[in-house]
């Protein structure tokens, strides 16, 4: 009986129902918790680009700091603020899916901009999300600039599937620290971005170069391409904000 076709078919159906049911129950049941974790992770990364949050253990504390000190807008490629999407729903910067947006044409993407306020409510830093391809999978990051919108204040990179100890080192503070103080515009006011050079321990780096990670040149190139592409897309917003600032002075 155990070998009959009918038994095999019925067994397969039963198995599918039981296992599939168990999996979908877990998935649905855990969804709210998972969404919260993703939200917390995003906010942690945004804050991580401008301040040291590694000592804060309590997730609620992070959310509290975020709510108090971070303001966000969404802009399009021309630097114009976007408040509603094509269907007319309001756009929330934290909810914009960068990974999904990356697939669209740069003209159609939405670009969230996060501003980090100091204690008195003045803008202390601008944070832009970036997204691109690494060696094995996607990489993403948040790049923070000072008030001049030129000097890098900090970066927070993230990756999926890069090799630990090699490409995955882009998430380590020692590597990310190398970006701090670098500039993305040259003296002529042209956007040149910041690029990671090949190899580690390089001397005489310019203000647009950072030391590389030995053994992870391709991931480094991916980071370079990601920064270059996304900063290009944000350049309209950057120019606009800069000119507004000079006008108000």
């Amino acid at each position: 009986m155990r070998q009959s076709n009918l038994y095999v078919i019925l067994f397969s159906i039963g198995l599918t129902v039981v296992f599939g049911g168990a999996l979908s129950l877990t998935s649905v049941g855990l969804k709210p918790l998972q969404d919260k974790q993703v939200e917390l992770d995003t906010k942690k990364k945004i804050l991580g680009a401008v301040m040291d949050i590694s000592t804060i253990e309590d997730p609620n504390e992070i959310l509290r700091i975020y709510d108090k000190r971070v303001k966000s807008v969404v802009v399009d490629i021309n630097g114009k603020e976007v408040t509603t999407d094509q269907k007319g729903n309001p756009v929330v910067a934290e909810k914009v899916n960068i990974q999904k947006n990356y697939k669209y044409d740069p003209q159609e993407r939405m670009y969230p901009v996060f501003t980090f306020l100091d204690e008195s409510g003045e803008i202390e830093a601008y944070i832009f999300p970036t997204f691109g391809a690494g060696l094995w999978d996607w990489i993403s990051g948040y790049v923070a600039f000072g008030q001049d919108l030129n000097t890098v204040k900090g970066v927070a990179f993230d990756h999926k599937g890069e090799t630990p100890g090699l490409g995955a080192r882009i998430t380590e503070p020692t590597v990310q620290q190398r970006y701090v103080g670098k500039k993305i515009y040259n003296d002529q006011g042209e956007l040149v971005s910041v690029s990671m050079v090949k190899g580690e321990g390089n001397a005489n780096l310019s203000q647009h170069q950072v030391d590389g990670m030995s053994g992870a040149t391709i991931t480094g190139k991916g980071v370079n391409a990601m920064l270059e592409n996304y900063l290009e897309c944000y350049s309209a917003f950057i120019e606009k904000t800069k000119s507004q600032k000079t006008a108000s002075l």
Partner: protein
Amino acid sequence: MSEEIAEISEESAVAAIAKEPSEPLLSKRRKRIVSDPLNEDNPITVQVLGICSALAVTVQFKPTMIMSIAVIFVIVFSNLITSVMRNIIPNRIRIIVQLAIIATLVTLVSEVLKAYSYDMYKILGAYVGLIITNCIVMGRLEAFAMANKPYDSILDGFGSGFGYAWIILVVAFFRELLGGGTVFIGTPLEFDVYGSLGGLLGTSLQTNGLMVDSIGAFILLGVIIWIQRTKNGYVEH
């Protein structure tokens, strides 16, 4: 007459079952089920299974540890489930059933991690798929759980899981030390060996890039197999 014989034999069979004392929870045989895979019948060094993940995940200690825990969990529970179901699984589709059990457990692990420990989930993400294709898990289901009782199967799962774990942890320890110059990075025991040693000696020590590559894992695994076989005299026939 024939009925009588049947009755007697049935009686003695019942008596035999009733008389036989139940095996102690940790009898000699059961201890061997757990201890054999740790050394003499190690899944990696002797059976040469699970090599793919041993090469891929052992660059650093921390992800290797997470991988070990996940594999032990999956192997124990898939062994248990398969063993419980072993009498109703149709022989012709048993491999698919085993795969379904493993894949379900692995997906459960990653879903729970995503909800409760998102950072861990991000590190594990790349490796979860590797557990599904880990030959050791499937090998144990096919070779042991399909023919043994649930409790023995759990023990077998622990044995094989720990046998796998200690080998990859040793490999990861040395790969991280030689390739990155640190030990236990990302854990509370984190220590920059090359950095402090270089500071003591007044020079900077160069790490070995070969160890970060899979080749480094191959070399280390070879050395472990060499030492092990020299000690226990295992010879391949």
